């Protein structure tokens, strides 16, 4: 019995958390050497709720003297007598899932088939996204809009991931996912209206360009705050779970966003709460001028999923079919299990961070050019599409031509349209316009009337 006491003492330390008294334990255990009975104090605990499967609280007691493992809080752990640390750097990095090779040839038979119409729509939207990005970027350079952000190099990430989702799935974007909205049916005119902040903007001119949002398309309005959408996606997924809907949420963020507190809390929480959310990391190598080597030292983002108890995969972000398959699978897993999934798509930010950036200042132009040419996601998918007989050079010329015309037209219309009225300064602060804002609006209108020469003519009243 004396041999067992040291073991008991350690266990008592744990038990003490459960409001037991040492003497109770000793008397009930020591009095009956031969059988392991449940001590009296166990009945005095408050009831614990198990919303997920948890270990039997008293498993620790039934080790039977075996010292190869122990049921610590958190579960059974095997012991080792080796003083060895886990390596900081893995011997081999996690492999990257790919379906098409650099020249668009199929190299996998483990992927989700895309039907013809979807494949062609995917390609067309990728081209439209590219065209839209190029022309809007130029428009900013010409001073016609104040700001723009392109998705150069991430067309496959945008379109292929969107294609794998259903319209019921809720999208929580960062800011480089306009393609997802494009796929869902947001028109070029609507994009242009938001960038120009005109009266037709369904954002009522409240936000700077590229901060799109559309309830109709289940795409939550872009906010400038980095990585806050990750927590929001988890909360909304909780709501979906409570509703019992056949849908999930997906949230996008970059390599930089994974350094934030929100990323950590959201992933940890999602795993504990068990909610259907897809965490999609666009690891494009850069957070403005910060390369990933200055952002983290882990093997990218995919290994972090394991740390939180979340199934994860690394995919080639320039491979539309790989992204499509991964998201399809992730969606099925998330909804069926009601648990989070992490996808890390490796890519390269071929454009500058935004129109406020000139990335040639911190990275070699040759590097940018190489990625644009050799690993272009649009080119690669086109090559596969052509190989399947679904696309031709003529179709390409026609598409590029019409896309360009459409974008230019949308910009021209948006530029000429009226700006939102003065009343929109005050609406939507609260659900109902409060009296102080009503008074302020009245006072503003009176001032404008009295001093009309001091106010710009193009602000409608």
């Amino acid at each position: 019995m004396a041999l067992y006491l040291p073991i008991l003492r350690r266990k008592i330390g744990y038990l003490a958390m459960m409001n037991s008294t040492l003497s109770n334990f000793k008397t009930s255990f020591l009095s009956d050497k031969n059988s392991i009975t449940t001590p009296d104090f166990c009945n005095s605990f408050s009831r614990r709720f198990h919303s997920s499967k948890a270990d039997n609280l008293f498993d620790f007691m039934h080790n039977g003297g075996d010292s190869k493992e122990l049921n610590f809080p958190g579960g059974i752990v095997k012991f080792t007598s080796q003083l060895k640390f886990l390596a900081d750097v893995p011997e081999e990095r996690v492999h990257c899932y790919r379906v098409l090779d650099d020249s668009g040839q199929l190299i996998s038979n483990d992927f989700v088939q895309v039907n013809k119409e979807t494949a062609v729509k995917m390609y067309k939207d990728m081209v439209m996204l590219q065209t839209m990005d190029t022309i809007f970027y130029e428009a900013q350079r010409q001073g016609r809009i104040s700001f723009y952000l392109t998705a150069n190099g991430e067309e496959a990430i945008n379109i292929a991931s969107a294609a794998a989702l259903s319209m019921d799935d809720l999208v929580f974007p960062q800011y480089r996912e306009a393609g997802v909205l494009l796929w869902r049916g947001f028109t070029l005119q609507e994009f242009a209206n938001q960038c120009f902040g005109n009266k037709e903007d369904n954002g009522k001119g409240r936000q700077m360009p590229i901060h799109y949002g559309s309830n109709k398309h289940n795409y939550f309005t872009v906010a400038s705050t980095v990585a806050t959408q990750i927590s929001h996606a988890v909360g909304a997924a909780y709501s979906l779970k409570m509703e019992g809907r056949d849908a999930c949420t997906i949230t996008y963020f970059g390599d930089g966003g994974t350094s934030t507190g929100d990323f950590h809390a959201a992933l940890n929480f999602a795993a504990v709460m068990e909610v259907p959310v897809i965490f999609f990391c666009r690891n494009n190598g850069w957070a403005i001028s910060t390369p990933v080597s200055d952002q983290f030292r882990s093997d990218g983002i995919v290994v972090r999923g394991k740390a939180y108890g979340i199934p994860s995969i690394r995919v080639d972000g320039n491979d539309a079919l790989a992204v499509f398959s991964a998201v399809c699978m992730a969606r099925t897993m998330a909804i069926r299990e009601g648990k989070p999934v992490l996808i890390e798509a490796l890519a390269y930010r071929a454009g500058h961070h935004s129109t406020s950036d000139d990335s040639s200042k911190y990275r070699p132009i040759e590097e940018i050019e190489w990625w644009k040419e050799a690993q272009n996601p649009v080119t690669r998918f086109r090559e596969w599409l052509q190989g399947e007989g679904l696309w031709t050079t003529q179709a390409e010329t026609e598409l590029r031509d019409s896309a360009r015309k459409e974008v230019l037209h949308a910009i021209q219309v948006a530029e000429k349209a009226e700006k939102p009225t003065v009343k929109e300064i005050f609406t939507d602060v609260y659900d109902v316009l409060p009296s102080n804002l009503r008074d302020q609006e009245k006072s503003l209108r009176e001032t404008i009337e009295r001093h009309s020469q001091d106010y710009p003519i193009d602000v409608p009243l």
Partner: protein
Amino acid sequence: MLGVIRRRVACKGNPALNLEQGIRVIASRAFSSTAKEMTVRDALNSALDEEMSADPKVFLMGEEVGEYQGAYKITKGLLDKYGPERVVDTPITEAGFAGIGVGAAYYGLRPVIEFMTFNFSMQAIDHIINSAAKSNYMSAGQISVPIVFRGPNGAAAGVGAQHSQCYAAWFGACPGLKVLVPYSAEDARGLLKAAIRDPDPVVFLENELLYGESFPVSAEVLDSSFCLPIGKAKIEREGKDVTITTFSKMVGYALQAAEILANEGISAEVINLRSIRPLDRSTINASVRKTNRLVTVEEGFPQHGVGAEICASVVEESFGYLDAPVERISGADVPMPYAANLERLAVPQVDDIVRAVKRACYRSSSLAATA
């Protein structure tokens, strides 16, 4: 002296048998005709219970709200009644659960997020302001955020600098938020129910020392449909010589001060703000136009405080009616010290209010001459 007794009794959580309660009962009897009493804690608990029962979309989230029955027992019994999906115990991450709560509110649910104290809300303040308060505006009405952030605010007793700050002024500055500050059990019930039902994000600032205090409640207050309007202040005590505006725990202190002043021939009108944002400027100004003198009382830091805003409002709208400069009473401009004697000096006491009122009435010499 009274202030000291009240604080000691409040710390022990034993509201029975003290002078202060006697005074309060006298003061409040003029306004309600009932025998039933309820603590602020029970008022909050019953309000949460009723709203959760009425609407399955309402759920609670926070540290220790479930199994532990709430760090201050405000959520006692709710886990048993509604289950772990509606009373969610969280890991230690205010930023995390505030963000998750906001996300849930973005898509249909009505979360009530508890901060163990509002000092910890600073970890989550980006989500409160940028994700909750501004969302309806930034999304042009597409994203509404019917969320409530609640918890104890301001000084407790002997908890030091990082547990004692008052956040009324900071949150009160933000458009898009509503900020409520209940005092009595009736306030607690009515305002919390209103907050949960409101489609806008609400910051609900309670006070730890008030949790154990009992207040009379009428049958109307106990009814499950009871609700107080947001943005209306309550005149706790009518008067004609000076207006005292205050909120939360300081309402009790102001009422005590008013009683002392009445014995000296000064009739003070005590306004319980109930709502910092929207601020009930019309009630405040109407009162000042009647009394011609104003003293603002708050526990928080002096610079950019609630009193500063009230003073500006009165100067803008009722300048001609003021017979004396506005007096502001606030906490000291120092992080809250711990030692009991220092803490007492760092927060307003009843005598401070009495002295300030007398100064406003030109019954005593200026501030420089008093301690």
